[in-house]
């Protein structure tokens, strides 16, 4: 017994190591940075002085006070969380039928269709964003089509480029596979006998879905939502390239602090808040998923 638990602990050592190295240590560094002063030319000022044999700390709460001085940051956080939620929701709406369709195909077709789902990963992220810039451009096919349609109803032309619409569409496009894959994994292993049983007991196709397939797929939905929500919350490239002035997200501001404003301490404050928000979401999602799995 003793030996066994000892070995099990050994097995958990590498993952614990990664977590410490790639999550805990950087977080602690950021937390520490959020209490320091900015350096004169960017970076961080020294955190202590040693003058005339006198040792003195040079830390401050100013950066955290700044967070609460203006509501702009809170609003930006809320807006970013809203974007992430909306993206997750749209990914569920689009990804669920897709995952279900693939899971109900014969085995051989399933592998091919899954390959198509992950195919975009094989091209560079920025290349795919630029592709959407072409699609959204005033002369692009999508804009032309939308304006053609609007014209039929006597409505004026719109521009899609540099708009929140463009940002959301692209966010959904980029993150859709992160929803489809866990959902597919869940749907594929659901026993078809349960659907037969439900049908046998009087459930039509809609009720079979609503009473059997859907509740059993909730763990997949929670897993997929986490995988979509977190990267979207930290996304800055898509709002940067495709968004207008009103579609910037919290990550754009964080990037701004580190790059343009050269205010690392305040960037660290914002990063810390975002990390905490993300961790809370993961904990909530994992809890919901575990409850689902315990029954599933």
């Amino acid at each position, binding site marked *: 017994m003793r030996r066994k638990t000892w070995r099990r602990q050994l097995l958990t050592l590498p993952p614990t190591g990664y977590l410490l190295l790639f999550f805990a240590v950087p977080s602690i560094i950021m937390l520490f940075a959020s209490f320091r002063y900015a350096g004169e030319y960017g970076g961080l000022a020294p955190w202590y002085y040693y003058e005339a044999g006198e040792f003195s700390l040079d830390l401050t709460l100013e950066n955290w006070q700044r967070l609460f001085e203006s509501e702009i940051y809170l609003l930006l956080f809320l807006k970013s969380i809203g974007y992430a939620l909306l993206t997750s929701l749209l990914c569920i709406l689009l990804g669920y039928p897709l995952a279900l369709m693939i899971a109900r195909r014969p085995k051989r077709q399933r592998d091919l269709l899954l390959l198509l789902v992950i195919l975009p990963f094989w091209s560079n992220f920025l290349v795919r964003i630029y592709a959407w810039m072409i699609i959204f451009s005033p002369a692009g096919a999508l804009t032309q089509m939308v304006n053609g349609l609007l014209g039929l109803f006597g409505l004026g032309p719109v521009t899609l480029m540099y708009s929140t619409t463009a940002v959301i569409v692209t966010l959904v496009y980029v993150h859709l596979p992160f929803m489809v894959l866990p959902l597919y994994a869940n749907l594929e292993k659901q026993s078809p006998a*349960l659907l037969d*049983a439900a*049908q*046998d*007991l*009087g459930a*039509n196709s809609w*009720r079979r879905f609503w009473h059997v397939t859907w509740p059993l797929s909730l763990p997949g939905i929670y897993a997929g939502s986490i995988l979509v929500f977190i990267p979207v919350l930290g996304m800055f490239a898509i709002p940067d390239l495709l968004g207008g002035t009103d579609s910037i997200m919290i990550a754009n501001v964080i990037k701004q602090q580190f790059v343009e404003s050269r205010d690392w301490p305040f960037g660290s404050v914002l990063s810390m808040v975002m990390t905490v928000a993300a961790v809370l979401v993961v904990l909530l999602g994992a809890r919901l998923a575990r409850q689902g799995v315990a*029954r599933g």
Partner: protein
Amino acid sequence: MLEIKDVSRRFDSFVALDRVNLTIAAGEFFTLLGPSGCGKTTLLRMIAGFDQPDDGDILLDGRSLIATPPEQRPLHTIFQNYALFPHMTVAENIAFPLRMAGCAREEIAGRVARALEDVRLPDKGRHYPDALSGGQKQRIAIARALVNRPRLLLLDEPLSALDAKLREQMQLELITLQKEVGITFIYVTHDQGEALALSHRIAVMNGGHIVQVDEPSRLYGFPNSRFVADFIGHCNLLGGVVTAVQTGDATVELDGLGTVQTVIQPAAGVAVGRRCTLTLRPEKTHISTTLTPGEEAAHFRGVVHDMLYLGDVTVYKVELANGMIVEALLANSAPGRARFFEVGDAVEVAWRLDAGHLVME
């Protein structure tokens, strides 16, 4: 009454069911029995509506079920692995067919509670299925299928996942339950013992055909073919040719053994010159060391080749003059039996005039 009329089913060129005809009476415990792959599940799935026949019709009380989807057929299926919904409690599982039928909430609660008592698990309502044992899952699956009183209950090898002891107990429970609810059971199994124990009538299937439909005792006593005789219980199969037919009995020349007289059933198609098989149950085959003239119609010399002590009975395998091995069963409670036969003993194998049953080839 369920009628299956000329039902055929082909998968590509493979014929899984070939013009199957059956009539199952209301309230009957009817079993489909046959070796693996003979088409039992295929037939059951067509009755349930999960599969459609290529030809033929399935009628319930004279009305065709073919166009009715499974969810609207007044029957339920017990699946082999129970197929309980893992995300619902036991009570929610049992309530499922009632909810689908649009029953009122208060009514559902009462009927679920009664269903749980019927299967003697009144306090399991709040548990999830994965907290139940195999036998308990089985009972919940049955409670769920019977709660809204279907016309038919279809059971596809429902006991095959249980161990022998529990299986026997569940068999007794099924018999009692079927009698209580009075619903027609159509039961699928490849276990002939189970079929004999449970059923009012049995349809023996082979290769997509119905071979014989009869009551268990008639199926055992009067099989209509070598296949049925061999499949149901143990049986000695002695090949031969009919040499004479009298009223009520026939003379058969058994291959390499000699002639015997045997009783024949009316309409058995016995005719002089036809090849036939004399089927002889081991418990009707007597062996002894001394010749006892008069009683038996047939006497053959043989040597004990092998024996199997089973506690209540001993099975002796005796080699006859033509090299055939016949089995004889001796109850170990038989009075006056002085000693066990030993392997190598010369014995005499005998049977009465009405012990064997003749089937034509």
